[in-house]
């Protein structure tokens, strides 16, 4: 599955040589959060941001308990430190074969922050409530893959300018469904 995705991703990049250069520089931050403490309904936010490696601005960012959005923005932003650290620690030789999933970036008292980096250096970050024990590594991994697939679809849209904020409704609904399902 993962291999297939990689394949599809790569081919789409190779298919448009000019586009791939732009895509390579994008970074994406996806933040997902479940806050059960707010209530049984559970809310989530997904955010995603692009930009050159130096820029790291969010392509898309969403958090479900909107009233506490700022906190998550700060958290996701801070987590980029660890993402950078992990990417640079992996070294350049293994860029192609490396695992895209970065695992747990760092735990906080209430949340767990997970990271994922595409081959084109787009970053996905997900923040989940640490009390939500239903989410294990495998679930997180598959959520990231879903996210990646959906992001690939966004990129394949000829009307989407790489680097713009993602406003795709399909992507939005996918994220929404993922967040509801998790809770």
């Amino acid at each position, binding site marked *: 599955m993962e291999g297939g995705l990689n394949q599809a991703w790569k081919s789409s990049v190779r298919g448009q040589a000019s586009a791939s250069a732009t895509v390579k520089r994008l970074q994406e931050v996806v933040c997902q959060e479940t806050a059960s403490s707010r209530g049984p309904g559970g809310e989530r936010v997904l955010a995603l*941001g692009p*930009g050159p490696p*130096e*820029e*790291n*601005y*969010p392509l898309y960012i969403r958090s479900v308990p909107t009233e506490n*959005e*700022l906190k998550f*923005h*700060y958290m996701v*932003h*801070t987590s*980029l*430190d*660890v993402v*950078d*650290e992990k990417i640079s620690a992996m070294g350049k030789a293994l860029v192609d074969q490396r695992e895209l999933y970065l695992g747990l970036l*760092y*735990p*906080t*008292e*209430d949340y767990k922050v997970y990271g994922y980096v595409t081959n084109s250096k787009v970053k996905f970050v997900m923040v989940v409530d*640490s*009390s939500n*024990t239903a989410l294990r590594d495998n679930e997180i991994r598959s959520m990231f893959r879903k996210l990646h697939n959906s992001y690939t679809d966004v990129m394949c849209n000829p009307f989407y300018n790489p680097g713009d904020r993602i406003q795709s409704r399909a992507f939005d609904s996918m994220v929404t469904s993922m967040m509801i399902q998790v809770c």
Partner: protein
Amino acid sequence: MMCVCLDGANWLTFFCQPVKSWNGLTLRKPIDMEKRELIQRQEATLLDLRSYLFARQCTLLLFLQRPWEVAQRALELLHSCVQELKLLEVSVPPGALDCWVFLSCLEVLQRIEGCCDRAQIDSNIAHTVGLWSYATEKLKSLGYLCGLVSEKGPNSEDLNRTVDLLAGLGAERPETANTAQSPYKKLKEALSSVEAFEKHYLDLSHATIEMYTSIGRIRSAKFVGKDLAEFYMKKKSPQKAETYLQGALKNYLAEGWALPITHTRKQLAECQKHLGQIENYLQTSSLLASDHHLTEEERKYFCQEILNFASEQTDSPGHKVVLPMHSFAHLRDLRFTPSNAVVHVGGVLSVEITVCSQMPVPVHMDQIAISVHFSIEKNSYRKTAEWLTKHKTSNGIINFPMETSPFPASQNSLPALELYEMFERSPSDNSLNTTGIICKNVHMLLRRQESSTALDTPSGVALDDGAPVLKCCGVTLEPGANTITFRTQAKEPGTYTLRQLCASAGPVCFVLPHLYPLAQYDVYSQEPQLHVEPLAGKASDAEHSSLSNDSTVREPFVKKAKLCCWQSLECACYLQTSSLLASDHHLTEEERKYFCQEILNFASEQTDSPGHKVVLPMHSFAHLRDLRFTPSNAVVHVGGVLSVEITVCSQMPVPVHMDQIAISVHFSIEKNSYRKTAEWLTKHKTSNGIINFPMETSPFPASQNSLPALELYEMFERSPSDNSLNTTGIICKNVHMLLRRQESSTALDTPSGVALDDGAPVLKCCGVTLEPGANTITFRTQAKEPGTYTLRQLCASAGPVCFVLPHLYPLAQYDVYSQEPQLHVEPLADSLLAGIPQKVKFTVTTGHYTVKNGDSLQLSNVEAMLILCHTENKAVIYSNTREKASDASLRVQSSDKVTSISLPAAPAYHMIEFELEVLSLPSAPAAGGEGGSTMLGMTEAQRKPKDTQKADHCMATTDHKVSIECPWSIYSTVIALTFSVPFRTTHAVLSAGTRKYIQVCVQNLSELDFRLSDSDLVDTGDSTDLQLLPLNTKSQQHICSRQSVFFVWELTWTREPPPSLRGRFSMEFRPASEERLSISLKPYTYEFQVENFFTLYTVKAEILPPAGTELCRTGSLCALEVSITRLSDLLEVDRDEALTESDEYFSTKLMYEVVDNSSNWAVCGKSSGVISMPVVAQATHRVHMEVMPLFAGYLPLPDVRLFKYLPHHSAHSSQLDADSWIENDSLSVDKHVDDQLDSSSIKSRGSVHSAASSEHKGLPMPRLQALPPGQVFNSSTGMQILVIPSKDDHVLEVSVT
């Protein structure tokens, strides 16, 4: 992590007991027996169990040397414990968990520090920093909980809470009791007072920030920094907070995180407000007021803050706050009325702008202004009213794009480069010949060099203060789009560029530092003009204009025109194809002829409709092979004739008669015309005038052929006001050719791509028949205006068919110059010789001046220079190309002051050359009139006459300045001619006993040979006592170049002693090459004076062999007898210091000296001495010396020199004993250092008088004066004596010299 979520597990209830103790982990003991017992007794709380388990893990991990894993697991443990307690809904007093976490963090850290060294810890900060930051966080929340952060300090409730918390800590464990920095002590101290808390919190925060920064987790560091800033704000020290907030904001802005930016800005605004940074606060407020992430209320609040400030500060008018406009409002569009943005002087222009206010409420602005940049266009001829009104047909609306992404926001305040396109038209045909890109706001860009470090500060905005502005006062900007109209009355003609938009409310200005895209309007001034046009010709124009006004009527006209075009295009296509086929060698001769005939038929048919032309590219018809200019350097003067000869290879199979062949020419006046003088052009352009055009080898793709080549030049321009370079660029000078080519034709061989350069001046040649193959065509043109002409197009036309070669490459240019008349005067030979007639060449370059009959050159005469007038003076007139045009005679008339040369008539741009003979009268060179120098010169001459001849070859020169008045100028030309004297003359006095001879040496320094005659020497002193007897030959003497001739006279006198001689030597001379000269030349003269030449003393030296031998032998002492004889009684010349008188008896002191410079002789004993010579005739003094010959052979005698011995002071000489003087001559020898040996021997001899000599040591030295050589005659000069070798073998020396 173990799962603790199982429902209904009874054992869990056990862990749900309320937490009563939170004293943290204990890691210092390997086993916490206390906790173990609690667990055994099943009394342990959750925290106890966790603590115990972790302590055991820690012990094991440390034992395994994995301390970093301890840190990692500790963090996980702490997080999960907190979570578990939450899940289990264990009741925990507020702050208790914070205490536990804080203590545990520090405990773990201290434990790790305890088993690692500093370096290890430093390199593993990444593992421990999480614990540090967690501890900081917990301490912060404890501080807030216990009221330690608040301004007033903790209240009673807070204090109670603190006491409860401290109680839960229990007593300090015994193992850490004596550790100063134990976690327990730290916490207790921190909670004890506000100050202690501050200290601990700051320590911890700074440590954490430092650690994060050191491992590159900048974002985390900034986040902690923000917490710290919050703390500082609570502590009322905003200046400390500001740094952290700015740092964090910079980071968020750079990475574009909108919510953190808004939040941090809000904090920063508060901070700036406290700090009283008005500008920064207003700037931040305006940013926040336009921030959509804030609530409406918040935005209104910040907007109100700005407005409050604006209304408050109206009383202090001098202070202005300049803020960038992008945060306040956005300029959407701009509209000029009239829409072409052109007004005449005094006309009214209105500018309407639409501004989108980003403020949440309506804002009243005192004034909105647009600053305007005014420039007078240089190429103002373009900007005539007609041009402007015709060419500017935009709708007058300029839209400003919204900056889509505000990231990074700091970039917005940079002024944009104002790049303009530049167009310049050639003055001759008004065609566009220059384009470029120039930057007109360099001064705004240069101002921006100093970069501001602070982020959102408005210092980056430069307000264009001095510029003229368009104003609009009292405007209220509603949220959203607003339309504002500016009205202005045009004053000065020129181009106005809208530069800045500035909205001001009180002292607050919002400035949009640059408007992009550019908005400009033009103001023109027009001279009154009268146009008279025939009505008939106007008819079509009138129709035209009516058509253009009515679009419905226009339609059919356009269609018709199009059809017409289409037909002609079709026709042109056919002709083009025909011409290609006619030149195609793959067809048969007949076929080619057929197609050729088709073209010719068309050409002859269509002659009746003259307006219609078919333009075809030439490459299919003929090929330009070469081009030749005559004159070959392609430079002609104004009015001169230039011919251009081209060779065209016709590719048609039959001879084709062309009505006309024309070359169109591009004319440009070179700006740097100072370079293009006639001389420069003629010198630098030395090509043969032939330009070869390469045959396009492959005609594929044929369509490429008609593309003109770019003519690119560099361009520099300086602003006229401050002379700073404001424009550089690369410009293209044949733009009009290229621009026409824009419309591309789809059909291949269609000729529409060929542009005919219509308006340009042309060189024409009519009625030419082009034979198949090479044809030579010559164009003639008369140059009119000076400048550079570039041949551009070649066009051969037959009837309406034109074959056009759209560009000539390589470039063929010719220059036309205009020249001022000039006069050159230069000698014909290398240098002019004085005394003989010399030829001087006059060259008159007429330039644009035509020399008429009667024009003459007026030469002012110089006394010492004659202009020799011959009757048969000839002038030669050359054309500009140095070809001889004609001969003419020249009349030269001389009067006292002026010599007038009447020039022959000569046309412009010719040269008149003629020669004149001039004669510089020899001025007698001043020879040594002074006695001393004459005497010295004589010695030299006597001794080595050859050296003097070699000495100097430089001729003496005299300059003559002639001023010449020329007919073409009111100013006279001054010309300097330098004449050299060909001879150099020296004289000498020779003696033989008392007989005297005068020798004059004449040296010829010139390159010419001369004949000398009539040499004469006369005594100009008019003394009858002296007679000069010539000993020279009477005949003419020939003196070759660089040789000398000597003349000798014997000097006799009748009265002794003879007086001084003032001699004047004169001789006739003439060049040896010319037998007879038309004029008599002045003799060459030389004057000199000789004095004191009468011989006073004769010196005779004699060497006698030792007694008993006949001949001298080497090594044996011989006697040297020197006798000095006075020949005359007391004379005038003797009266000097050396003369002493006693009882009518006169004596003088002389010093003799025997010197043998050739080392033939060894002088034994005293070689010099002073004698007292009686001043009586025939008084003789004899000196005996001993010398030893060193070599065998005929040896010359040693020199005997005689000096006058002068006492140092006459006063002394009278007091001193004469004898002691004589004997102490060692003192007097101040001249010959090499005589020291002899002197010492003298001393030893005169040892008797040593006391006396020592007496005089301190006195000044007596002086020696050489006797004038004429006064001493050495009769033994040149004598030799035979020395034979000695018989003793051991002293035999053989020397070959």
